[in-house]
């Protein structure tokens, strides 16, 4: 056993020294490899962080959401539905919500207008998201005016700016009072945007939803679990798309790796010939060259992953922002919560190290089977 370790140590030492002897080639390969890992890892870390962010948001959303459909389109829901829902056994509470979108011509941006369930601003006041504050250069005490549905001006005094826990969704928020909301859009007092329902026993969510569906046939019921599932697959799909787009780059890299591995310089061939002539076996040379590959792979993987981690979590992923997020004009300025996922690391490993290893096997073998008597010819 100690012999085995001695052999591995000696081979490892020699592998390090041979890599060091070919500095240019080693550093070039390492740089390209690191960049490939960096790009792939950035894409994966970024979309994964977005997914977590979304999950965080969803955790705060209602378990059951009831919307009214008219001719297949989302419509305002009458307050009478509230009573009908509250009467269903198992329902803990049902509340009407008021929300919508407001286009601000001054900023050419859409805001998410909401009436918060508790701590709603007083009439004439508004609380805004950080993104809104930024585009309008608004501070507390400023006044913002909008045209209501009948053309009259409605003015708001900024009473506060939302401290964003998750800036991704809070950036474009515009919180107002119920009175102002109804005045802006001309919505009658007995109408709501939708109804949120809480259920006493989480296991009964599905049953309760079925009962609501039966009692109020003009409604659509959305469960949080369903949204979560959709988000998951949408994010997976996005991540997969990005990987596929990057596949071209990855492929080019493996061709490059193959080239590098098979295009042995005369000097390297001479070295292998000498090693074989002085008593190294084909297996020993394969072990040596594989160790070199492992060293390069691990270094590039660690460097690339670390760089990607810094890129995404420290510097806010400037390279991917426009592609993977942004359903709003207001790009939220936010920092994603750092998180490393084993599955993701394993996947990334498969996308980089495994094909690199494969690209190397045949060239290594070819180099290692140089005839030992070649140096004598």
């Amino acid at each position, binding site marked *: 056993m100690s012999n085995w370790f001695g052999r591995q140590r000696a081979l490892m030492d020699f592998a390090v020294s041979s890599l060091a002897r070919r500095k240019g080639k080693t550093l070039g390969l390492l740089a390209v490899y690191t960049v490939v890992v960096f790009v792939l890892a950035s894409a994966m870390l970024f979309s994964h962080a977005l997914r977590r962010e979304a999950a965080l948001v969803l955790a705060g959303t209602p378990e059951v959401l009831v919307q009214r459909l008219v001719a297949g389109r989302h419509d305002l829901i009458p307050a009478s539905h509230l009573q009908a829902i509250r009467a269903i056994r198992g329902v803990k509470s049902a509340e009407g919500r008021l929300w919508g979108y407001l286009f601000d011509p001054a900023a050419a941006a859409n805001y998410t207008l909401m009436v918060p369930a508790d701590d709603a601003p007083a009439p004439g006041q508004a609380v805004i998201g950080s993104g809104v504050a930024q585009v309008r250069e608004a501070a507390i005490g400023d006044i913002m005016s909008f045209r209501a549905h009948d053309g009259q001006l409605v003015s708001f005094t900024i009473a506060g700016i939302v401290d964003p826990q998750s800036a991704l969704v809070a950036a474009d928020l515009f919180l107002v009072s119920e009175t102002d909301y109804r005045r802006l859009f001309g919505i009658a007092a007995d109408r709501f945007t939708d109804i949120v329902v809480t259920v006493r026993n989480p296991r009964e969510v599905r049953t309760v939803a079925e009962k609501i569906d039966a009692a109020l046939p003009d409604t659509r019921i959305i469960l949080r679990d369903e949204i979560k599932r*959709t988000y998951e697959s949408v994010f997976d799909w996005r991540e997969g798309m990005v*990987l596929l787009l990057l596949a071209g780059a990855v492929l080019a890299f493996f061709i490059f790796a193959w080239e590098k591995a098979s295009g042995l310089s005369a000097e390297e061939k001479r070295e292998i010939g000498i090693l074989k002539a002085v008593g190294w076996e084909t297996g020993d040379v394969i072990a040596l060259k594989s160790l070199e590959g492992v060293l390069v792979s691990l270094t590039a993987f660690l460097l690339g992953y670390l760089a990607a981690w810094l890129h995404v979590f420290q510097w806010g992923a400037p390279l991917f922002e426009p592609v993977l997020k942004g359903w709003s004009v207001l790009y939220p300025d936010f920092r994603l919560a750092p998180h490393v996922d084993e599955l993701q690391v394993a996947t990334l490993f*498969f996308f980089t190290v495994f094909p690199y290893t494969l690209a190397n096997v045949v060239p290594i073998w070819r180099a290692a089977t140089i005839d030992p008597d070649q140096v004598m010819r």
Partner: protein
Amino acid sequence: MLFQPAIIALVLASALSALMLVGCLPFAISVLRRWDLSSGAESQVRLEKRTYLVATLVKVVLAAEAAALVLFVFNADRMASLFTGAMCAVGTLKVDPYGFPALYLKLAVFFLAAFWLVLNHVDNRGWDYPLIRVKYAALIALAPLLLAAGVVQLAYFLGLRADVITSCCSTLFSGGGVTVTSNSVAALPHAWALGLLGASVAGVLASGGAYLLWGRGGVLHALLSLAVLAIGLAAIISTISVYVYELPHHHCPFCILKREYDHLGYALYIPLFLGTALGVGTGIAAAARRHASLQQVGPAIARRLALGSMLCFAAFGGVCAALVWRSHLILFEGAPWH
């Protein structure tokens, strides 16, 4: 099909692995037909050189399959949230009929590749390569299995459709929900499971010890290793997992791999699988001694493999005992360990 990074990686890995082994087939056939060590012809020397390539490729395949196995299970677990009614990997694997077959085939490929490498290692130590034809015949047999594993896995992934809500219709009734029923293995009584487990681990340690002492019973050790694998997996599902989760009716063999349970599953599966690979390897190496050139070498390798497999099985038994010991769950009233 779900368009997901881990799935793409798995499909890619098995496609490349299959491609590599299938690429070796023409060579394997020419070894069977033309191998003649007594010849000094250049064609024979070329054949010999190729054997190094094949051995290296199989090593890469083995490493990839081992990693893919972990990725496959991990990914199945992670996808559970995509399917109505699936709570963990078991649910995901039951989403379509190919899930569990894909897992079993992957396990089979892993073990057979490991056995092949033992065979290769032993054969390489005999100066006349006495097992070369057996080895390459085995490789030809391994290739279709690898292909099948890849195809079944692909069928499994193609069959996956997430229950996605859309905005045009009510989504309430999406999917009927997958039932995760406990199967017959989970129903194995706890006392039986623990008893069989103890007996089989003791048996495999005894047979390994006997081989170390008297150089006999290598094949028996191999058979017992396979028995420990089967019994060990059954015991993990029926009893050990229950002790870990401390829930009498949770029988999942995968959840123990998760972070919530401190990745304990690895401490069970790695020694169990490694022990089985080494244990069966013992049998292969021990049986090889009937070839003149392996008379000394075969048993020497077998001894080392036997020792390795005994250490692994002892570790497996130890971890099982420790999990039962530290659990707060009491399955047996008045059991001596409580």
